[in-house]
């Protein structure tokens, strides 16, 4: 899932200051799970904006709506009437959702209410960890399904670096050493031999270094 964090109210209030009618638009999938932009967070933020505006003597009407996903036209369509009624939209989706809304409603200012942070996992209630950097060429099979590109601070493909202590990363002792995890997992799988293979430098063309990426599935396009 995409993990994000709501922007501070001080930043949001400046962004929405020029507008009189604001739609706070939540997204009911990824950002709902990480408590940044689902129905509950949309309601809280709408209320906070009303309060801060009233405190500062500004008049603003705030409407709230949450759609299932802001990155799919089918769901975006459900917001069309509400968007039409307002002069601006504060989207609580990830950066992709914000852009999808802006593309669909070209004449409306669409503002980001969330800082999109990473692709991650819900480790336990309230704890999210970064697990994938979307490099575009997944090599997890070699590494016992622990990603060194994302989880090793030095992004070593031929680790470990030798600096880890008691299973913790020398860069940040709060983080587990990815290479310790890789080795432990390979041991369990009986695949320690994977460590003998030299992993060549990554070709970053498949990541954002090659420009914005596109996925085309001809078989699904009519």
């Amino acid at each position, binding site marked *: 899932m995409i993990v994000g964090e709501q922007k*501070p*109210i*001080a930043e949001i209030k400046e962004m929405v200051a020029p507008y009189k009618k604001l739609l706070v638009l939540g997204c009911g999938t990824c950002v709902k799970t990480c408590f940044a932009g689902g129905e*509950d967070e949309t*309601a*809280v933020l709408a*209320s*906070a904006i*009303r*309060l*801060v505006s*009233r*405190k*500062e003597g500004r008049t603003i009407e705030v409407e709230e709506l949450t759609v299932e996903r802001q990155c799919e036209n089918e769901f975006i369509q459900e917001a069309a009437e509400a968007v039409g009624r307002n002069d601006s939209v504060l989207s609580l989706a990830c950066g992709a959702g914000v852009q999808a809304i802006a593309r669909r409603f070209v004449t409306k200012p669409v503002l980001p209410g969330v800082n999109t942070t990473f692709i991650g996992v819900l480790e336990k209630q309230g704890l999210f960890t970064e697990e994938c950097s979307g490099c575009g060429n997944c090599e997890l099979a070699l590494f016992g399904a622990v990603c060194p590109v994302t989880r090793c601070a030095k992004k070593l493909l031929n680790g470990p670096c030798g600096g880890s202590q008691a299973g913790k990363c020398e860069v940040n002792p709060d983080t587990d050493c990815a290479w310790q995890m890789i080795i432990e997992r390979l041991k369990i799988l009986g695949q320690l031999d994977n460590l003998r293979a030299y992993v060549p430098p990554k070709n970053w063309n498949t990541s954002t270094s090659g420009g914005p990426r596109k996925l085309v599935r001809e078989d699904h396009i009519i």
Partner: protein
Amino acid sequence: MQTTFTPRITIFYCINSFTETSSVFCEIENQAEITFVKLPCSSMVKDVFVLRAFEADADAVIILVCPEGQCRFVEGNIRAKKRTTWVCGLLDDIGLDGRRLSLFNVKSGDEASLEKILDGTLSVLEELGPSPVRRN
């Protein structure tokens, strides 16, 4: 404690820790306007309910929950406490002052503590004055 204005206080309470018929409220009636919000468990205190109380012109919000370890639903009062701390921070960011919101663990029928809580809230409000977003 008498304040220089008539404060509006919203009290969210868990039905397992408190009843509205407490004599303490009869005594305070002429010093403050109190609105009660009854909850089946303190875990139902959602952030947005508290903010809406301020939108509805409360000067302060009090949340009354059972003592820790005595919640009938195990951790409702711990959840309520964590949320309250979070909303206090948000109130500070909004400029309303987080001291307008507080949570107390009280035993059912503990009138003495209740009296102290209300008195403490009135003193805080005397210092802070009416909520800056109160409309009338």
